[in-house]
């Protein structure tokens, strides 16, 4: 099983293949299609991430001390962004999720999405994944 860092590096390498923003966005949109989709019953107000212009739902479940994320969004760029995050953080131990940094977002040329004022809520998404990690970590203890 790869570590978060290894997966992040893998994603960065993938994005390095592209020369311009358009190809990077196209790749991100492609990645959105591979997102493990949240079950309809979990598309609740509670699982909706605040601070996004589009809707983003994230659900977390614990399997063998690892957090498994599923998600969805009504906008496909947002779906691509959450897919990148889920790929890096899903199937990981809550402690590892909490310790992970997000430099790879910058490295794949999506730095502008990291601004807290950006309406897509990438920062809120990361925060939400980490909140789940905190919540489930408490359960483990």
């Amino acid at each position, binding site marked *: 099983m790869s570590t978060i860092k290894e997966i992040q590096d893998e994603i960065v390498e993938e994005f390095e293949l592209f020369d311009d923003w358009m190809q990077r966005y196209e790749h991100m949109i492609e990645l959105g299609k591979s997102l493990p989709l949240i079950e309809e019953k979990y598309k609740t107000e509670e699982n909706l991430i605040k601070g996004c212009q589009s809707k983003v739902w994230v659900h977390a479940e614990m399997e063998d001390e690892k957090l498994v994320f599923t998600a969805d969004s009504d906008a*496909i760029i947002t779906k691509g962004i959450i897919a990148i995050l889920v790929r890096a953080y899903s199937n990981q131990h809550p402690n590892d999720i909490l310790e992970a940094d997000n430099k790879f977002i910058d490295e794949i040329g999506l730095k502008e999405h990291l601004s807290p004022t950006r309406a897509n809520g990438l920062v809120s998404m990361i925060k939400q994944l980490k909140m789940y990690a905190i919540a489930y970590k408490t359960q483990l203890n």
Partner: protein
Amino acid sequence: MKVATEKAHFDVESIRKDFPILSRKVNGYPLVYLDNAATSQTPQQVINSITNYYSQYNSNIHRGVHSLSQEATDAYEQARIKIQKHFNAEKSNEIIFTSGTTHAINLVASGFTSLLEKGDELVVSALEHHSNIVPWQMLCERTGAIMKVIPMNEHGMLDLAEYENLLSEKTKLVFINHVSNALGTVNPVQKIIEKAHAAGAAVLLDGAQAAPHIKADVQALDVDFYVVSAHKMCGPTGVGILYGKEEWLNKLPPYQGGGEMIATVTFEKTTYADLPHKFEAGTPNISGGIAFGDALDYMNTIGFDKIAAYEQELLEYATEKLLKIEGLRIYGVSEEKTAVISFNIGEIHPYDIGTIIDKLGIAVRTGHHCAQPVMDYYKIPGTVRASFAFYNTKAEIDTFVEALEKAKKMLS
């Protein structure tokens, strides 16, 4: 003999030179700024006005005996007169400087607290911006008054027959936007005001979206309150005005307490200053007020008739071009519209379109435009809104349409 059928020449290229921001690049592309309904850009003349204030005569107004304070006070009061003349108010003390439209609406809503009783009715339209809904909802919570809503139709127009049904002797106030921010619909305000007055109700018009395109004459409209923001009409942010008929402004109690708004203060009792100062507590946005006056001078020099004619030309051109994009639907197709086009393309989320075309240097607004009831009516999460100003060009519209085609291809 040559027949003069050509449209009057509008020298947009020379106008564009007044706006330094229009020559910058965004994400490597020349900026195409189509978010004018959110805020307009600022001409050098207005930038100079602000710079000149801070480099030549910055000082506090209305109280200093020194020369700078006199100069600043004169310039500020001169701006009030320019604004009075622009909107054709009868008196300059009917112009209250505020921080903008939202502040002006809150001022009036707060003032009506003591004028309403439980069961009184207020009438609003389904087309409103949240800032012309929420302050009145808060007023209803304070007073027990009830809010009634004029419905809209599929074209984004208000149902006037239903409006008349809503009016009664219980109606105390009607508040409506002159132009809808989300759709650009120009509302039939003259009729709305006449009917309200016949029922004995006062009318507040939110002119934020109208003022950049239409020169409103408050006396001809016979409107009781008219509110605007400077930053939508080439002025700076953080300043706007409340126009109110003198008799109404005298009826409303002061909004905020502080300096400037008093006549005498003792710990037992304070008496308030006359209009307009009664509503202008504290040091105002002095440079902003002065620059607002200069922004009006700038626009009036070009001429509102010419601006309106040119913007309509842009609106028609853009509408025609946009409708050629397959799957594109325009929301708000009222016959009388300002240069605003709210639309979606197929099932594509407006946020996705906005993000892609931003990478191509194009600024538009996406989302619910602070008018959720309008979006709920159409059962959509939001729209892409392109809003044009007199400094936009047909070439920019072409660039915009090409970018939309590109985005559509990527996102479908």
